[in-house]
């Protein structure tokens, strides 16, 4: 008896095809993750901070919820990491913001949490903070505090995924050539 015609694929070939499809999808997701990481630039955080921090006239509940979230997050971040703005306190001076429309520049050149605080949680010297006297305000930006942990974790995940894909590649290649030696 003759074998089946070689046009219908055998079970092993179907398996290889399915594994290749899986591999392709895994590859696509790894590349997408690496690409999306590029979108988290300082400008993105800056724009969000300027538009939402301390926003008072919110349009709807969703807007209000986002504004409150951003305000609370930035307040805690500036307080705990001793930083101000994304690139520096000059962000508050250079750009118009929701914060600027709510507070006068003469009283609040930047948010109070940019000032160096004493043990009670109030600025050590308010006038010195407003003038920008070194030592009484946080002069560095918060982007390093945000991007540092984010980059290390994203870096680990992206390269681990890549390593797994390389291993899968070797296994698939080996499987294909091992099975191609056995009769179908």
């Amino acid at each position: 008896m003759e074998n089946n015609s070689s046009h219908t694929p055998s079970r092993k070939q179907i398996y290889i095809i399915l594994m290749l499809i899986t591999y392709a999808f895994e590859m696509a997701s790894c590349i997408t993750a690496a690409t999306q990481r590029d979108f988290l630039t300082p400008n993105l955080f800056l724009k969000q901070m300027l538009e939402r921090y301390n926003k008072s006239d919110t349009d709807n509940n969703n807007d209000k919820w986002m504004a409150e979230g951003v305000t609370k997050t930035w307040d805690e971040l500036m307080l705990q990491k001793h930083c101000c703005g994304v690139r520096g306190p000059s962000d508050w001076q250079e750009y118009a913001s929701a914060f600027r429309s709510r507070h006068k520049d003469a009283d609040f050149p930047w948010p109070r949490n940019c000032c160096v605080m004493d043990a009670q949680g109030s600025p050590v010297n308010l006038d010195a903070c407003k003038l920008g006297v070194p030592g009484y305000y946080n002069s560095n930006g918060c982007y390093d505090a945000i991007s540092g942990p984010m980059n290390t974790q994203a870096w680990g995940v992206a390269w681990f995924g890549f390593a797994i894909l390389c291993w899968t590649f070797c296994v698939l290649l080996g499987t294909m050539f091992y099975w191609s030696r056995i009769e179908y």
Partner: protein
Amino acid sequence: MCSSWVVLAFCCLGQLCADQSLKPQLAAPQLATNNPTLTTVALEKPFCMFDSSLHPNKSYTIYLYAMKETASAISSLVTDSSGKPLDSTFQQTSGGQLGPYKAALFDVPNCASPPRFADVGDVNKVSDVLKQYLFRVGDDGTCLYDPNFLAVCNPPLAPDTTYRFKYVLLDSTEGIMKDQTLWSDPIKTRRVKLPLKIDTWPGRRSGDMIVITSILSVLVFLLLAGFLASVSSAAMGSKDSSTETRCMSQTIQQSEPRPQLSSE
């Protein structure tokens, strides 16, 4: 550029440079890093500028006048015809648009013992040092709207506008101007940019992403090539093996009946 240095050298030689330096200056940038801001300007107080006009037994006051640079075409006089300094306010001059307005008055700063910058590090002394060393024009955001406010009002300045300042020495008892500095160099307040204009496009792709994409694409290509090679070699192999099995099956069929015959 060269000629101004020459003039300065001559001036200093000829004792004429006294006028060159007698202008209100911005506060030292090491101390006041945020200067000028959107609506405020921090000026150094006039240390040692009026010493030649001071008599030991009299009391003096210093007035600070501010005006927009465009107002110098209209009027830049700070005294009236009798030598008394003007009493103009921010509202009367529309924020310095029509002429100079009085922004502050304070005592003559101590030339002999000026405040030291080193004291700024001390938390207890920093307020005094700042108060003695500089004056912040535009500091008071509420005095314009407070009807009970009687002192000199120092409201916030306008953003993106050029201002000029002048110090005037006044004899407190007589009320006559004794000396004045020149108008300062034009000082412009900051301007804000709109956050809508911030470009959030990431621009260049990072190196990691390019490496990952290129290597993975190559691997996928190799897998497909390997798969096609294995399929084609399997197809070729199956044609050879199908002829082999036919021959083999025939030989088996031929060899099988013989043992039956021999046993019988």
